């Protein structure tokens, strides 16, 4: 798994690709927490390169969401592949996260997302 962070104006985009599992999710967590703590007000996770995500990866995203609520950071995901989306839906988390289809939509709309949306 690779994790890279881009900055576009006041938005941090975390590009994540590969498998997010018990081995790799700590690296995503580290990047996510660092961006939410230091670089808000908006953090997006680009999931378009994520071929696989397990419960530890989902737990990392939930932790990021909870932390974003504490810090009043706008937080969203985009580019979910069908399997990753299905797993979130099965766990009933698709309505908890703010999810965009693609980066352009995410960049356009993240500014209007209330930090507590999806509660």
């Amino acid at each position, binding site marked *: 798994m690779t994790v890279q962070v881009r900055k576009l104006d006041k938005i941090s985009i975390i590009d994540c690709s590969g498998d997010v*599992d018990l081995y790799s999710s700590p690296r995503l967590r580290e990047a996510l927490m660092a961006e939410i703590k230091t670089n808000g007000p908006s953090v997006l996770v680009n999931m378009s390169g994520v071929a*696989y995500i397990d419960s530890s990866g989902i737990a990392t995203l939930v932790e990021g969401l909870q932390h974003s609520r504490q810090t009043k950071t706008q937080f969203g995901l985009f580019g979910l592949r069908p399997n990753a989306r299905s797993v979130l839906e*099965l766990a009933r988390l698709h309505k908890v996260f703010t999810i965009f289809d693609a980066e352009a939509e995410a960049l356009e709309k993240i500014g209007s997302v209330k930090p507590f949306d999806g509660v």
Partner: protein
Amino acid sequence: MTRIVLGSEPRLLNVLRAVVRFRAQEAGFSPSDSEYVALAVDEAAANIIRHTYRGSCDGHMALEVRRLPDRLEFILEDWGPKVCEDKIRPRPLDELRPGGLGTFFIYSFMDECSYDQDYKKGNRLKLVKFLGKGCLRNDGSSAKTR
């Protein structure tokens, strides 16, 4: 029959997933369902690493995949302390908290899940997926529930 023995190292889980995906697709499961089956077995193996071996990479586990006429069986063995089966329950989904989804995915995607109580060397978990039975319904819910 396929049998592999792995160290209890999280970085080796992708090897386990590759074996499960391959055997599931070979048995006729769609790529998507093979992915869900691999997720369920991965979660069970991750539980061994986290709970049985408490994160230590010094332990070992074995995965055996058996193809029977009507099903695939995945047998996971470890040589750690016995788990208390009564404590292994999927958590309620209305709670928003980071952990506890692994068991939920195992129960959602597999048709049977049971521990061999006669296995004395550690734990032996059997996961069963019946052939021709998808993992999800068209509405995205688990094929097992409802």
